């Protein structure tokens, strides 16, 4: 698969938004088996099955080395590749220093 499970090293603070969006649209296009643009709302378009939301969380966590906490579950953040990009940048920027993993504490 073109989108492996290793976190991308330079997705940390400062990684280009474009690069992140490209990563994400690539994953979505593979996962949903059709081209997904940066502003396509795949939930609204009915393209996802019942397991996809969790899969997306796991993908974002692995790929960008962050943890999605319940406080992050504003589902609007997960609707489009652009919004996800903003979310990833928020999490890997300001929050990067005090990441905790669910269950680790």
């Amino acid at each position, binding site marked *: 698969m073109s989108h492996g499970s290793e976190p991308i090293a330079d997705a940390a603070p400062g990684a280009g938004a474009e690069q992140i969006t490209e990563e994400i649209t690539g994953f979505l296009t593979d996962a949903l088996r059709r081209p997904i643009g940066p502003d396509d709302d795949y939930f609204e378009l009915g393209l996802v099955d019942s397991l996809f939301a969790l899969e997306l969380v*796991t993908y974002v966590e692995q790929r960008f080395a962050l943890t999605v906490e319940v406080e992050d579950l504003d*589902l609007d953040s997960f609707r489009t590749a652009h919004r996800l990009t903003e979310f990833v940048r928020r999490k890997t920027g300001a929050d990067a220093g005090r990441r905790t993993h669910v*269950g680790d504490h």
Partner: protein
Amino acid sequence: MSATTETAGARLVAAAAGFAAASRDAAADWDREGRVPDGVRRDLAATGLLAADLPPAYGGAGLTPAEVGEAAAHLGGVCSALRGLLTVQSMVAAALARWGTRGQRAHWLPALAEGTLTAGFAATEEGAGSALGEVETTVDETAGGAALTVTGRKKWITFGQDADVLLVLGRTGGKPAAVLVETDRPGVTREPVRGQLGMRAAGIAHLTLDAVRVPADHRIAPPGAGLSHVAATALDHGRFTVAWGCVGMAEACVADAAAHAATRVQGGVPLGGHQAVGALLARIAVDAAAARELAARAARFRAGGQGRGVTETIVAKYAAADAAARAGRDAVQILGAAGCASDSRVGRHYRDAKIMEIIEGAQQVSELHIAAHVMRRFGAGA
């Protein structure tokens, strides 16, 4: 906790084996009576096995997926109701560990780990089985947002007769929402279900929630995430322990069928001397072994971290439910009338295994997911 994780894991897997061995004969009585005795339920809960993969910080033993699987296989090989108790408690614990706030985790998880609190998972309704997006139970904000009022009717809740608290799937303002409801609150009525095909001792109940008020902090995750995140996490965990329970059942059927085929003589030959009987035995033995390997594979993926192994778990549950159902059917065939007797172990597994092909994602629903994944993998270049 003084013991290391490995030691705690080995001790708990051994405890599950011991519990299973001690329940081997009684399980038929529980099935007939439609009830696991309260004392047995409490004893199993007190072992700490019911949510043993919770981290030690929450009172769990931090069991690995493989260890949880082994424990579920031990219980499932003897009594699906006991395995069901582990399944529902650990489903709710998994959903809370993943999507509870820090405060919710601290409040609920230690009691679930200790077994002083038992939990049920209440999703299914008359109009919402495989399609859980159709649930109609309402979770309305009342008292200026300080409380939630839950109204609806839930069906087929495993250990719903006994659970202290239920993780209920409903909707708030139309959006899927998950909420914890203690069963001693006014407005909760339980109607025991009896005489169903299988899982007869699993304390199944239909539950009516009539304007049950709970504090607002009982809601797990924001509305919108109740099904796709909270219930989905619970169901993923449930499929994993069901898969392993089915491995245990399939192996138990192979053992009983082989023992019978080797010793029962008809027309001067042991039954196993007939090629057709040997073929049945061979097939179910291979199915059981394959199911175990797929369940172990799912465990390896899950050990990779939170959220991993969802599809591998579906594959394992699908294969293991099929193996158990086939092993049950063919074991009854080989035992003949003995397999049809009211106290027949393989007969009970046969009935219980059929249930496993329906719950936690019916076989046909699993096939849809598996097929979609296969196409994703190989259809990209098309």
